[in-house]
């Protein structure tokens, strides 16, 4: 078994128009910038993929990563908890012009919906958002004297995430707090595509240290010099 592919273009080749794509990262930490930019390259060359629904905690920053996808016109809708950042212009402009959709989800509910999607749990109850505008239209129920809101699972056609080490069977480790949503997304997507800082042979990662088991991973591409969104922001880079 070898899930590694040679190029980013090959890794993302089957991302198609209209897909729902989960993208790992919290702000810049864990953002798979190179694979996002590979999607933009393909869109510029071929006009596809477009009309995408993107699931991420945020909605892009500056002129790189998800913000650059939005600027390019590839994104129809964001599912996120916090569509603000140091420079949220890309999303804000399109949102206020009515050109992009938004499903605002409380952060813990977003994480749990993705977890439920990966775990085969179609719905669950949470106290989060009870009595607020974000619970409107959702079923509620009382358990042990307290009110809860029913939330549905969230699944995706593809997940695009960043890992630190990947072995050829897809076992992953992450770097520091870059892990965030990525292990959940890997399980919740039909196809999980990983950019890893280093690809190693099976056995090179201590099984005790594996965070995402390879069963949740389909494709890996090595990006050894992966860039940080925050560093690109500070350098004023536009993609």
């Amino acid at each position, binding site marked *: 078994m070898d899930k590694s592919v040679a190029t980013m273009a090959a890794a993302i080749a089957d991302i198609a128009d209209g897909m729902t794509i989960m993208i790992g990262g*919290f*702000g*810049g*930490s*864990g953002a798979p910038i190179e694979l996002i930019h590979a999607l933009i390259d393909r869109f510029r060359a071929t006009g596809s993929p477009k009309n995408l629904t993107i699931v991420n905690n945020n909605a892009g920053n500056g002129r790189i990563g998800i913000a650059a996808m939005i600027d390019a016109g590839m994104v129809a809708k964001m599912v996120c*908890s*916090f*569509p*603000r*950042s*140091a420079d*949220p212009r890309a*999303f*804000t402009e399109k*949102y*206020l012009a009515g050109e992009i959709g*938004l499903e*605002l*989800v*409380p*952060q*813990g*509910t*977003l*994480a*749990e919906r*993705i*977890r439920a999607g990966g775990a085969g749990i179609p719905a669950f109850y*949470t*106290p*989060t*958002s*009870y*009595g*607020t*505008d*974000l619970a409107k239209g959702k079923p509620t129920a009382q358990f042990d004297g307290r009110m809860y809101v029913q939330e549905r699972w969230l699944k995706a056609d593809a997940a695009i995430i960043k890992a630190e080490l990947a072995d050829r069977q897809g076992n992953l480790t*992450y*770097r*520091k*707090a*870059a*892990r*965030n*949503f*990525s*292990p*959940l997304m890997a399980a919740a997507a039909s196809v999980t595509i990983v950019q890893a800082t280093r690809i190693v042979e099976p056995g090179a990662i201590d099984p005790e240290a594996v*965070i995402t088991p390879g069963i949740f991973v389909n494709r890996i591409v090595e990006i050894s010099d992966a860039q*940080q*969104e*925050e*560093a690109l922001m500070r350098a004023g880079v536009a993609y």
Partner: protein
Amino acid sequence: MMHKLSNAQIAWRAAQDITDGAYVNLGIGFPEMVAKFQPPDRQAIFHTENGILNFGESPPEGEEDWDLINAGKKAVTLKPGASFFHHADSFAMVRGGHLDVAILGAYEVAETGDLANWSTGPKGVPAVGGAMDLVHGARRVAVITDHVTRDGKPKLVKNCTLPLTGVACVSRVYTSLAVIDIEGGRFVLREKLPGLSLDDLQAVTGAQLVIGGAVGDLIVPEV
């Protein structure tokens, strides 16, 4: 102009109630300041939504590691005993009632304990982050806030007029003028600035203040 505490002084006062060994989440922005005033003889362990327990202050400029940030996307450092975890575990800590206290900012707090702190209305781009989860997770949800808005209107009210973050979730409010507990759907005054009369405090509070015992002096050092 009524004497009032600075934001740093409100944060200092809130920090005095954090016990040794407490697991604490501080909301982004003003509440992050509470960590600076943690009494040195007590160890609190700070939680951030994006998957770190026991993080410390920001590193010097130029030494940031952008995989090591807090929920406000600021670079942080790790303390001995720190751990990383994914977002579902992070919010299991929150919703599962494992945090001892969350300290959050507020636009409005109602005497019922309702909190409005995520949206100022339908204009602009809505953003909620982890606020709605935090208010239902921590064993104690405290608010730090100026007692009134910039144009002098009460922030402690009978009913919130802005979109709610959570219903009946706040248990204590630290303001620029007083420390107030929410008990049985009422504001119970615990401490007020020494020099401030009860009538003057009531005049800038949007719901009845209840005296539930001795009212202490709110004395805070210059910080």
